[in-house]
């Protein structure tokens, strides 16, 4: 497409003084105080990470019996306490753990677990019951709840560092923004024709109808891309990160946090955990990518004094069966561990007892903590929003923060 000439739009350019308020997020930001500002970083491990070979019950005979070819050897693990140990591929996390910046919640799940990847992922992302189909996600509903509370609100309040937006990040009224590369997004929105389209719209003329909704989304994307790019472009990360795509995504999150972006939730995914065949090599590679990147990220934030304001939560859509299969892998299971990181953990280390391998439900771990109890705790104590606005059931909340 040719470059459009700007001359024919002089009338519109001079009208720039009347750019509606929602196109000026920087001013809006100045009005809302930023004190006590906390970030949540969600890391999704897609494919169903095998929790038992991640946080290894290295003193449990049943573990070695049921996994005679794929158990992590007692001599290889990195002990955390007298029950559980890190997979050796997570060695980078040992230091983080010892410094009290890591916590592990065992046996997290939900009633009537679903073993389909996409269905169980939906359940985790929407915080629904297993027989309930919700069309919006829990972070999306958090954005909606903020909207109701009249707090200043823009799509960049939650950012997914990815090409597409996960269901977790979509609310009924508000949606987060997906940004893989802030500069590229900025460039795309600034294509002359799109720029013309945005500037020709007057907020007062935007209707409630679908066309109005499309233009509203476009304008918000335009202004968010501008805000994200201009706020973060000058920040230079000095910390060392591994050369993986996943580490790069966390590096981007760190850049956003350190440049003072007014974002409360970040979302990143790492895939490749569906280990039906040859699990040790496959999961080991992915865990190494995960552990090295997270350790670099936590060190980086510690160095820049942002670790106290940051909480990282890692989850996967389900764990795997306790007994291995015939192909040196594991099949889809149920309850799993959640890994948390941050400078302000109330209970660092192992939060609750290791999974009980002797009382299983059809060969699967029984869940002890509903994942929505973890969400409720984060909503109430970290994001400062009443969890009942986001989660339909009542949960008492936990004590990890």
């Amino acid at each position, binding site marked *: 497409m040719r470059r459009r000439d700007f001359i024919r739009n002089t009338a519109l350019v001079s009208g720039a003084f009347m750019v509606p308020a929602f196109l000026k997020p920087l001013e809006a930001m100045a009005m809302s105080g930023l004190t006590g500002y906390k970030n949540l970083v969600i890391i999704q491990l897609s494919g169903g990470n095998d929790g038992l070979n991640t946080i290894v019950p290295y003193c449990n005979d049943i573990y070695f019996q049921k996994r005679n070819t794929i158990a992590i050897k007692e001599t290889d693990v990195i002990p955390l306490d007298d029950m559980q140990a890190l997979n050796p591929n997570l060695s980078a996390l040992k230091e983080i753990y010892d410094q009290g910046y890591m916590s592990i919640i065992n046996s997290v799940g939900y009633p009537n677990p679903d073993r389909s990847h*996409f269905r169980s992922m939906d359940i985790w992302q929407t915080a629904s019951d297993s027989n309930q189909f919700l069309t919006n996600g829990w972070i999306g509903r958090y954005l909606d709840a903020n909207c109701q509370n009249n707090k200043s609100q823009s799509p960049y309040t939650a950012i997914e560092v990815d090409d597409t937006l996960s269901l977790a990040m979509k609310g009924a009224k508000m949606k987060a923004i997906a940004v893989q590369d802030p500069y590229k997004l900025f460039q795309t929105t600034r294509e002359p*024709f799109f720029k013309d389209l945005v500037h020709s719209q007057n907020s007062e003329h935007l209707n409630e109808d679908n066309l109005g909704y499309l233009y509203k989304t476009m304008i918000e994307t335009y202004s968010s891309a501008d805000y994200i790019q201009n706020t973060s472009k000058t920040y230079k990360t000095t910390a060392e990160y591994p050369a993986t795509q996943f580490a790069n995504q966390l590096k981007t999150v760190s850049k956003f946090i350190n440049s003072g972006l007014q974002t409360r939730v970040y979302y990143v995914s790492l895939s490749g955990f569906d280990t039906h065949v040859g699990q040790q090599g496959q999961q080991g590679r992915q865990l190494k990518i995960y552990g090295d990147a997270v350790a670099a990220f936590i060190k980086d934030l510690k160095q820049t004094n942002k670790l106290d304001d940051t909480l990282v939560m890692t989850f996967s859509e389900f764990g795997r069966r306790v007994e291995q299969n015939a192909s040196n892998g594991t099949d889809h299971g149920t309850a799993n561990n959640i890994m948390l990181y941050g400078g302000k953990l109330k209970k660092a280390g192992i939060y609750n007892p290791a999974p009980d391998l002797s009382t299983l439900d059809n060969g699967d771990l029984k869940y002890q903590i509903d994942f929505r109890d973890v969400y409720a705790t984060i909503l109430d104590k970290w994001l400062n929003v009443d969890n009942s606005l986001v989660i339909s059931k009542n949960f008492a909340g936990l004590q990890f923060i």
Partner: protein
Amino acid sequence: MRIRLSYYVSMKDIKRIKHLFARAGFGMRFEDLRKYKNTSINKAVKELFENSDNDDPIAIVTQTIDDMMLAKADADTKKKFFQMERDQEKNLNIGWITKMSTTDAILREKMTLFWSNHFSCRDGKAIYIQQLNNIQRANALGNFRTLLIQVSQSPAMLLFLNNQQNHKGHPNENFARELMELFTIGRGNYTEQDVKESARAFTGWGFDKDGIFKMRPLLHDTGMKTFMGKTGNFQGEDIIDILLSKKQTARFISTKLYKYLVNEIPDNAHINAMTDIFFNANYEIKPLLEFVFTADWFYDDKNTGNLIKSPIDFIVGLNRQFYVTYQKPDVLLLFQRALGQELFYPPNVAGWPGGRNWIDSSSLMYRLKIASTVLDQGLIDFTGKTDPEDEAFLATVRNQQHVVNTRVQTDPDWDKFFSDIPKDMSKVEIAQFLLEPPLNGTVQNTVNEDNDLKIMVVELVSTPEYQLY
């Protein structure tokens, strides 16, 4: 400027016919303008059905992958099988997109798309998915009862909703619940006891190794069941007939169809009328559709240009309007992932929610960009998220995700596109033809100021307006 009454404006029912093509198909093309020059709306509706008379099934997947063989195979053979399975799924997906993009039976495909989301399924082998798709196509304009029974007895759905595990004494309620909640009567119109009792009636429904439906008497519960106030030794078909005897089922389907074809906000009077027609015609789909397409309210302004195109409507509409062929059709899968609708991969059994759920900042920007990349051989920069089921496989072929930077190698047929535009059509009329909502703002400027018709057209299909129909 000289004021003239063009070919386009002088056509009697053109606005209506264009709307009909948008909703009952994938958009009207300039070549259709000539064909429908002096056609009344009633005649156009009649032709729409005639063009969809033939049921032409998809026959892309011909080879079954034998699970028994696979279980025993060594790692290399397994890898080969996985690759073959993935190729089958990919070819099926591209095959259907291509069919929608080139067929004359547009109404049949549009309704197949509707039923594939109504009877949402994401499981099983490509050959079963193809079979289910063909059931939805064969009955797309036929009888809802036949469609429902064939879908319920298809291996893909039996697998997806676990009816293979629904045995006498150990009922699995998954199918019975979704049958009521999503396929027929809707939430709030049945009890938990109805779910339990009807699940017993479907015990023993399964299929054999050739994918043929089998009622397995040894697994079937022949006891008395009480379902929705009736008691008897019900079979699965009896439960389906009891559900169809409730007018609420006709209303549930009519409402869903109204939201798909007319307006996301239900209008009670219109839906009541649709329900009566559907119920009294014993769930024949064709009379219901004819009623909608010939109703005056279908063409009301408030029902025009107000629906957000699904990603498939958007992609297929673009392909059809510009006769696009793809040198590397794999890019069609990238588009579907970027826009949030990959055929045969619905999010869950409830299907894609549609409407504004299609639109977020990234999917909208991809939409606005894809049109020009397709029409102008652009680059698409997209990695996206892979399907978890693919990932273990993907991990064996590459170490980590790398950024995809694909040149979209397409051939739009610009010559045909331009030669079909009637010579006396003005630029404003061309724009009005391409976009459903009224022209205003920058769109109007584009029309006024672009002297190059091709640039104008590319810009018009890169607007938010083009996302509506």
